[in-house]
């Protein structure tokens, strides 16, 4: 794995990061299987070079952008973020990445655009679970434009100072730290600017359980489990539980949702 050049960021949490071993062996990446260990086992089959992202929709400069092109002139930062899965486990992850807003500015977002839609690679020959109908492939996610432009929202290409391992979403993934992990879509091949809320995979599959917003919120339970508390992965057998924080502790995003009922827009 190649070392990356990056700077530190004030957006990082002071908490100690979860071990690299834990971050790279405990993953939900259903393209490689349902088991937490499946991505580490099978994601090695994924070819991440060459890689390009199709950027289209309501943008001034649509096109197929090579990853090198996307990263040209971008200064990478380390963002140590809390990561909270909708399944009520959590980690601290030292991502390396850059704000999504910078990329959006480069391609020129048109004034009619209100949302950003993302798509993961569809390549059943390398992503073994895509041969099954476990999910409606390709995996899709989306953000409202103001969420996408928030400085906390990054595209990550690295982890622990090196290129991001395949099981964590190589070569480029989204990280939105105040939302449940499934919003942070991996191995992105398409970014579309749209004027209406895009359909997203989990929301389409089980709308009662997985909302479009999916903000971390201890006050709004998942229908099948409480979201009031979480378990820290890597804490060991007797690690216990801790309280979940609203917006995963990133209170600065509260302004994005003024006037919205977050129990309805979950």
């Amino acid at each position, binding site marked *: 794995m190649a070392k990356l050049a990056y700077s530190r960021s004030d957006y990082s949490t002071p908490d100690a990061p979860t071990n690299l071993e*834990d*971050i790279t062996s*405990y993953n939900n990446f*259903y393209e490689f299987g349902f088991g937490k260990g499946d991505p580490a086992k099978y994601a090695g089959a994924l070819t991440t070079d060459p890689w390009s992202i199709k950027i289209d929709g309501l943008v001034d400069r649509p096109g197929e952008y090579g990853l090198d092109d996307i990263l040209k002139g971008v200064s990478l930062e380390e963002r140590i973020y809390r990561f909270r899965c909708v399944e009520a486990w959590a980690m601290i992850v030292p991502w390396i990445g850059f704000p999504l807003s910078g990329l959006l500015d480069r391609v020129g977002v048109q004034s009619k655009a209100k949302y950003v839609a993302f798509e993961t690679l569809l390549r059943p020959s390398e992503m073994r679970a895509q041969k099954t109908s476990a999910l409606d492939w390709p995996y899709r996610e989306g953000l409202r434009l103001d969420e996408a432009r928030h400085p906390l929202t990054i595209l990550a290409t690295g982890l622990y100072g090196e290129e991001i391992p395949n099981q964590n979403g190589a070569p480029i993934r989204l990280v939105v730290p105040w939302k449940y992990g499934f919003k942070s879509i991996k191995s992105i091949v398409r970014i579309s600017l749209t004027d209406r809320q895009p359909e997203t995979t989990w929301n389409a599959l089980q709308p009662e359980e997985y909302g479009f917003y999916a903000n971390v919120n201890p006050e709004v339970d998942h229908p099948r489990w*409480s979201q009031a508390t979480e378990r820290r992965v890597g804490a060991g057998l007797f690690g*216990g*539980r801790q309280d979940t924080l609203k917006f995963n502790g990133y209170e600065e995003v509260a302004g994005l949702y003024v006037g919205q009922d977050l129990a309805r827009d979950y």
Partner: protein
Amino acid sequence: MLADRLNALFRKLPAWPIYIVGPLPGIWLYWQGATGALGADPVRAIEHQTGLYALQLIIAGLAVTPLRGFAGLNLLKFRRAIGIMAFAYAGLHLFTWAALDMGLYWAQALGDIVKRPYITIGMAAFLLLVPLVATSNDRAVRRLGAVRWRKLHWLTYPAALLAALHFVWLVKAWPLEPFVYLGAVLGLLGLRVVAKGARSASRRKGAAAPSPTAS
């Protein structure tokens, strides 16, 4: 016949080693969890595996009667030990959830039992096993009488169904595994319906028909 030879072997084997060997996987799991061999989330791994063991043992216990009826294999003498081990793993599963997963959040744990249907039915399945394990001894069989004892132990059927549903209900999306277990439970319960139908059909044919052994 193979079945006869297997039955001769089963007659020679005692059931008590099940009580020695049965707990070993659970002890091994906790040992691995404590020494970091279960990966990033040992609590979840133990929770999942103890639940699976319980469900597998319940299914093994349910298989005893159809194996006798349809394959002529007599494993009856092992069934009590299998059932008690199923209860033990269900208990360990519950303990792991309450003590290690929920930690000190007792209010949330109790709330979840009431509010979360998959936890409610898991808890119900466990509670249904309690009278079964309490009467899994010769004294209880004598005190209750064979008929009442057998009727009480029909609680195994709803317990097995609830345990399998508990698994299906907790997963995201549609992985195959929980449905395989649910299918096994439904299949084993279905075989009993088939056997019952065959028995009443042969009874209707009159006393001349050979009567199959009751199960």
